[in-house]
């Protein structure tokens, strides 16, 4: 089971800035464990954000995105009280969606 994301969305003027922290191992597939065995890659591949149902960010990630990923973006529109939803899918097929309210 994955842990919730931390989503901070702040509206200022006509712009909303979103910062997201995701709880994920982002295992590169390059690392070896204590026994010398390669730890298989396990990482988020797709991540996207919607505001009132409209996609405001979508990205594809590789194994080089850091563990417990951080992403920041901003878009025009959005006001305090609006909902932002962020979803990800990893290469194990695990998915997660969390919501936050714009402040």
């Amino acid at each position, binding site marked *: 089971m994955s842990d919730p994301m931390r989503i901070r969305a702040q509206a200022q003027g006509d712009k909303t800035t979103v910062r997201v922290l995701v709880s994920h191992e982002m295992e590169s597939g390059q690392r070896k464990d204590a026994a010398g065995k390669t730890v298989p890659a396990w990482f988020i591949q797709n991540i996207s954000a919607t505001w009132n149902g409209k996609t405001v960010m979508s990205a594809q990630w590789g194994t080089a995105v850091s563990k*417990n990923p951080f992403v920041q973006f901003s878009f025009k529109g959005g006001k305090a009280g609006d909902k932002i939803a962020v979803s990800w899918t990893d290469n194990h097929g695990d998915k997660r969606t969390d919501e936050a309210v714009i402040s």
Partner: protein
Amino acid sequence: MKLSLFGPAALAALVALSALPLPAAAQKSTAEGIAEYRAMLADGNPAELYEAKGEALWKQARGPKNASLEKCDLGKGPGVVKGAFVELPRFFADTQRVQDLESRLLTCMEQLQGFSAAEIAKTPFGAGEQKSIESLVAYISAESRDMAFNVPQSHAKEKLMYEVGKKVFYLRGGPYDFSCASCHGEDNKRVRLQDLPNLTKQPGAGNGFGAWPAYRVSSGDLWSMQRRLNDCYRQQRFPFPGYASDATIALGVYMGVNSKGGVSIAPALKR
């Protein structure tokens, strides 16, 4: 394309630069570069993920007794979390011991939730209930963010533990003859590029002691003070300090009292 930028004039300037006393010049730009690197990461500390998880764990009924930690007394009364972190370690009448945050959490997890404290103390960092403790200490320390350290010295055992902590801090041993003071006894020292806080007085003590628990970029984990001390002792080439053992608690008292007035930024972000 990029190379064409370096015309003869630019090259001459570069050569002139390298004629300067290089160690100083290189060191300054390195220090500035590292400061820039850290500043960029300041926003978006993954420790936040652990704070949120820790708060949920604090309130969740768990363990053999299926109870939450909401009645745990961290020194300011049962259930009081705010401000507890900056007054630990301290003496607890129920256990008749001076305890740091993690030692106290073991007591609460045993008494309230029915976990075995001895079992948790034996569990490797990052596994099992040690993982729960990572998140709990992130939450508890965050509840004292920006508050000043005020580790008590009113009880005789607290005074004794301070003096024992000082002895342990200066104890040189192992094949390398290292003590805590080898790295943390003077101002403005570095190991490689890592600044080493002088933990014997302010402001170093507050900066060092007050930054842990912290999210460690190098391992991608949240490190408690116990884990920090454990790895210090590993690099010091000492034998293994028991989890929440009296030597580590005494060091906590020594560093915590030396931090008086310093402000807690825990859980911080560290290399």
